[in-house]
C-alpha cells in the first residue's frame, strides 16, 4: 500500500526543493519536538521517582485518595481518542473528506470529555482540601472531622491514644506532583483540542487529501504523545498499592 506522494507544487514553500524534502523536515521536526516534550515531562517524572522512593507509604496513602473509577474511565476515553485520531490521519491519507472531519470531531469530543471528568476530580480534591498549599488538610489540625486530617503542629503535650496519621505530611508532596503532572497534561490536551479545532475548520474546507495531509499527521503525533503521557501517569498516580 505504498505510493509516492504526488508533489503538489502549491504546498511547497520556496526554500524547499520538493514536497518530499518538506514532508521529511516536518516529520523530523515534530519528532524532535516530541523528544523535548519527553524530557519536559521527564523532569517531573524524575521528581516523582525520587519522592516515591523516599516515601512509598505516603504515596500509597495519597493514591488512595484519588478516584480510581474516574481515572480508569478517563484512560479509556484517551485510548479511544487515540484510535479516532489515527483514523482521522488515515482518512486524510485516503482523501475521505467526510471521514476526516468526523474522526477529528470524535477526537475533540473525547478530549473534552476527558477534561470534563478531570475538572470534576479537581473540584473534588479542592473540596477535600487535598490541593497542596496552606490549605492542605495536614496543615490544619482543626479539621479533625476530616477523615485523614492530621496536623503537623499539634499542641505540645497532647497525648492521644489512637493512631492518628491517616495522611502523613509528606503526602502533600504526592499531591503537588499529582497536580503538576495532571495539570501539565491537561494543558497539553487543551492546546491539542485547540489545534484540532483549527484542523476541523480546514478539513471542512477540503484542505487535506492524499497529496497534502502533513498538518493532520503532525497533530496526530502530538495527540498520541499526550496519550502516552497519560498511559504512564495513570498507573503512577492511581494504581499505587
Amino acid at each position, binding site marked *: 500500500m505504498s505510493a509516492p506522494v504526488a508533489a503538489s507544487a502549491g504546498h511547497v514553500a520556496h526554500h524547499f526543493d520538493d514536497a518530499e524534502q518538506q514532508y521529511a523536515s516536518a516529520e523530523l521536526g515534530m519528532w524532535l519536538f516530541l523528544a523535548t516534550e519527553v524530557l519536559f515531562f521527564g523532569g517531573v517524572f524524575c521528581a516523582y521517582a525520587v519522592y516515591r522512593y523516599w*516515601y512509598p507509604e505516603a504515596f500509597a496513602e495519597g493514591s488512595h485518595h484519588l478516584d480510581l473509577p474516574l481515572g480508569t474511565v478517563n484512560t479509556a476515553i484517551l485510548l479511544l481518542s487515540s484510535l479516532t485520531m489515527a483514523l482521522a490521519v488515515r482518512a486524510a491519507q485516503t482523501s475521505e473528506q467526510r471521514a476526516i472531519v468526523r474522526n477529528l470531531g470524535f477526537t475533540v469530543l473525547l478530549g473534552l470529555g476527558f477534561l470534563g471528568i478531570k475538572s470534576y476530580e479537581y473540584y473534588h480534591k479542592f473540596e477535600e482540601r487535598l490541593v497542596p498549599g496552606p490549605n492542605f488538610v495536614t496543615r490544619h489540625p482543626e479539621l479533625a472531622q476530616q477523615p485523614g486530617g492530621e496536623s503537623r503542629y499539634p499542641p*505540645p503535650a*497532647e497525648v492521644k491514644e489512637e493512631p492518628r496519621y491517616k495522611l502523613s505530611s*509528606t503526602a502533600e508532596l504526592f499531591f503537588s506532583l499529582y497536580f503538576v503532572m495532571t495539570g501539565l497534561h491537561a494543558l497539553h490536551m487543551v492546546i491539542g483540542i485547540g489545534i484540532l479545532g483549527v484542523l476541523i475548520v480546514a478539513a471542512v474546507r477540503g484542505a487535506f487529501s492524499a497529496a497534502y495531509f502533513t498538518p493532520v499527521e503532525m497533530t496526530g503525533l502530538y495527540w498520541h504523545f499526550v496519550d502516552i503521557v497519560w498511559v504512564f501517569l495513570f498507573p503512577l498516580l492511581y494504581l499505587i498499592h
Partner: protein
Amino acid sequence: MTERGFQLFPDQASSFAPRVDALYTFLVIVSAFFTLLIFLAIVFLAVRYRRSAVRDRKRRVGAKFWVLEAVWIVIPLALTMIMFLWGAALHFDQRIMPRDAIELNVVGKQWMWKIQHPQGRSEINELHVPLGRPILLRMISEDVIHSFYLPAFRVKMDVLPDRYHALWFEATQPGVYHLFCAEYCGTEHADMRGFVYVMQPSEYATWLAGGEQQPPVTAGEALFTRFRCDTCHYQGGQPRCPSLANLFGQPVRLSDGQIVSAEEQYIRESILNPAAKVVAGYQPIMPIYEGQLSEEQVFHLIEYIKSLSVMPPETGQPAPVEEPAQGFPADEENRDG
C-alpha cells in the same frame, strides 16, 4: 593576630591541607606544562609558517597521523585518571568520619553560625578547637542552604535545612584562621563569617571551662521532661512505647519492614515527624514535635538519647545490649519541669 598581610598561598593548618596542596601542585604542574606547550607550539608554528616565509608546505602525514592522535588521546586520559583516583582517594578520607572525634553541634541560620561544644560552651561565628584532635562538626541549617568553609583547613560542607551533614578535620597549626559561609544564602551572605581559633589542648580546656552553659546532655535531659517525652518513654513503663535506652547506633525495624540505623538523622526525624518512620510493633501515637523545638533543642535531645546508650570507652560506639540497661534517671525534681 587576625591581621594578615598579602598572601599568594593559603595557610596550611590542618592534616588535610598538605595533602590537598600536594594534589593541587600536581595539577598546577600538569596545567602549566600543557598551557606552555600549547602556547609555545602556537607561537613557534605561527612564526615558522607565517605566510611570508618560504617553507616546504607539503604535508605528508601517513601512519604518523594515527600515532599523533593516539598520543594526545592516551596521555590526557592517563593524566586525568591519575587526578581522578588521587582526588577520590583523598576525598574518601575527608568524608569518612573518625570514631574518636570531638563532636560539636553547628547550626547555621541567616546569617550566623551557632556552635556548641560537648561540655556546653557555645559561641557564635567563632570556633575554638584544640590542636591535634579530630574534630567532627554535625551541622544543620534553620533556613536556607549555607556552607561551612575553613580555607586554611581545606574543608567545606554544605549545611542544609532538615538534614545533618558532617564535616571533620584535625588542626595542626595553632593560630587564627577564617571561617566563611561559602554558599550564597541571601542578603548578608558576605557577613556570615568569623574565625576559627586553634589552641593547645590545655588552653582549650581552660577556654571550655569559661562558659556557663549547660552541657547538651543535661539540657536534653531537661527538655525530655519539659516536653513530656518521659510520660511515654520511661523504662519498664508504657508498653506502647519503645525504650530509648541503647537505641543509638542500633538497627531499628520499621513497620514497613525496612531496617534503618538509629543515627542522628533518624532520631531527629523520629522526634519531629514520628509518623514518617514508625517502629515495628508500635502504633504511631507519638505527637509531632515539628515547629516546637529549635534545632539546638533537637541536638540536645539527641545528645541525651545518645547518653542512654552504654558507651564502652574509646570506641565511641554503643555496646551491643545484652540486658535492658538501667532506666531513665527519673529525678523527681525534673518531673514537673
